[in-house]
């Protein structure tokens, strides 16, 4: 199973197929968000532990950056609306970036079961989470009018740490577990 270099162009395609996968990713994000909304990070107000964060990550790695972006963006916004937490477009964009960045290595991936590739993916998951949550946290400076120190302490650190732990533990498990599906699609 190979993704060769000529797939670089294919990585940036956003046709009907990619839209449909994004839709499925976003819907799955909402369902997992609602179903696990009981799991809170203790003593941190307004920040929940979200296993649903793995959805944009895995969509980006398997299907490309645009699918990762849209599944995170739409999923987060709709998840917040369904769980009555308001409308936070910057957080939607942050979660979208958590799917977009890991998707950037889509064209270079050869075999999801190899340790080297898993490590590459994990590295990009950390980068994606840092950039995505960083952007969303910084937006609180002008949305909620709090200082940079407060936003780092209240938003960035709890969300970043919980999201990368979730991603680093569950994404490799999902990649290896869905190997059969991926191999069939790329045959």
């Amino acid at each position, binding site marked *: 199973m190979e993704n060769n270099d000529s797939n670089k162009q294919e990585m940036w395609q*956003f*046709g*009907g*197929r990619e*839209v*449909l*996968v*994004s*839709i*499925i990713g*976003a*819907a*799955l994000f*909402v*369902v*997992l968000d*609602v*179903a*696990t909304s009981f*799991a809170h*990070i203790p003593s941190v*107000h*307004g920040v929940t*532990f979200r*296993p649903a964060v*793995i*959805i944009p990550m*895995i969509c980006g790695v*398997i299907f490309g950056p645009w699918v990762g972006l*849209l599944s995170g963006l*739409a*999923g987060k916004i*709709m998840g917040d*609306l*369904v769980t*009555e*937490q*308001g*409308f936070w477009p910057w957080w939607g964009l942050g979660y979208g970036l958590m799917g977009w960045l890991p998707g950037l290595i889509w064209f270079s991936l050869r075999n999801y079961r190899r340790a080297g590739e898993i490590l590459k993916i994990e590295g990009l998951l950390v980068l994606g989470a840092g950039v995505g949550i960083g952007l969303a946290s910084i937006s609180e400076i002008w949305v*909620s*009018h*709090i*200082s940079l120190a*407060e936003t780092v302490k209240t938003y960035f650190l709890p969300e970043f*740490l*919980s999201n990368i*732990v*979730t991603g680093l*533990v*569950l994404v490799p*498990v*999902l990649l290896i*577990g*869905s190997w059969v*599906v991926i191999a*069939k*699609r790329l045959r």
Partner: protein
Amino acid sequence: MLVTWRYRKRKSLIQSFDPRAWLIFYLCYVGCTVIFWDLRFLAVLLAMALITVFTSGIKWHEMARAWLFIGGFILFFSFLTFLTGRGGVELYKIEHSYFKIVLPLHIFNWIPTLNFTWERTFYALSMLVRVFSLASMTILIPYSLDPALYGITFRGLGLPDKIAYAMDLTMRFIPTFGRDFTLTMDAQRARGYEIEKLSGGLVAQVRKLAPLVVPVTIHAIAGSEDIIDAMDLRAFGIGPRTWLDRLDYHRRDYALITFGIALFLVSISISMFGVGKFWIPAGLF
């Protein structure tokens, strides 16, 4: 687990308008609120938001959870701002104290002091009113906008077809994946998995949720190929999408859009002349 929408058809001010008109007005309203720091202007905008909330037809018990969550959040940060004055230094340079609490202790030559000033008080009040106005208008959206019309509403606002039907179809798939999640949870429970007993640190909680999250995700990825093939066979996405529902503007929708745009343009214009900046009543100090 049933994922249900909070929307109900109600006789209300907000639902009497076309959803597109309401969204345009909402965006203009957000723009106006963000422009001003003057408590007098913000009070007018808050009044508009409260009128919309009280005429929305939504009962308190339907919205209680959302209000308690967002209200608690707003009050917490406003109180923090009142105590610390952080964020306000860009709006005022000099502060006038009206009350001071000095604690009778020293911590490395620092005496803890709480200084209540008029500037901090009015800044915190302005922030509270501002964020509360935005939250009030935003909370109403999921209760008042029909989820079945999300797609056609966004298409009508000029968003590309793909984004519009993506929103529409996401709503359609949510109950399906909710059902799959419930089936997986029941199957795992039958094998002795206890979701109620999630405890431990972050890594332990992630590992304990894996038996629930992993099968649902893999099932969705596997199923997605079949869904995509089925839709491709029905020529989905080949041409512009047609919609079952149709939205038409009425005179009141045009009036609302005109009012919203006018309000936004007037707000920008007067703010350019320095009107609407941070304000404290004269004669306080």
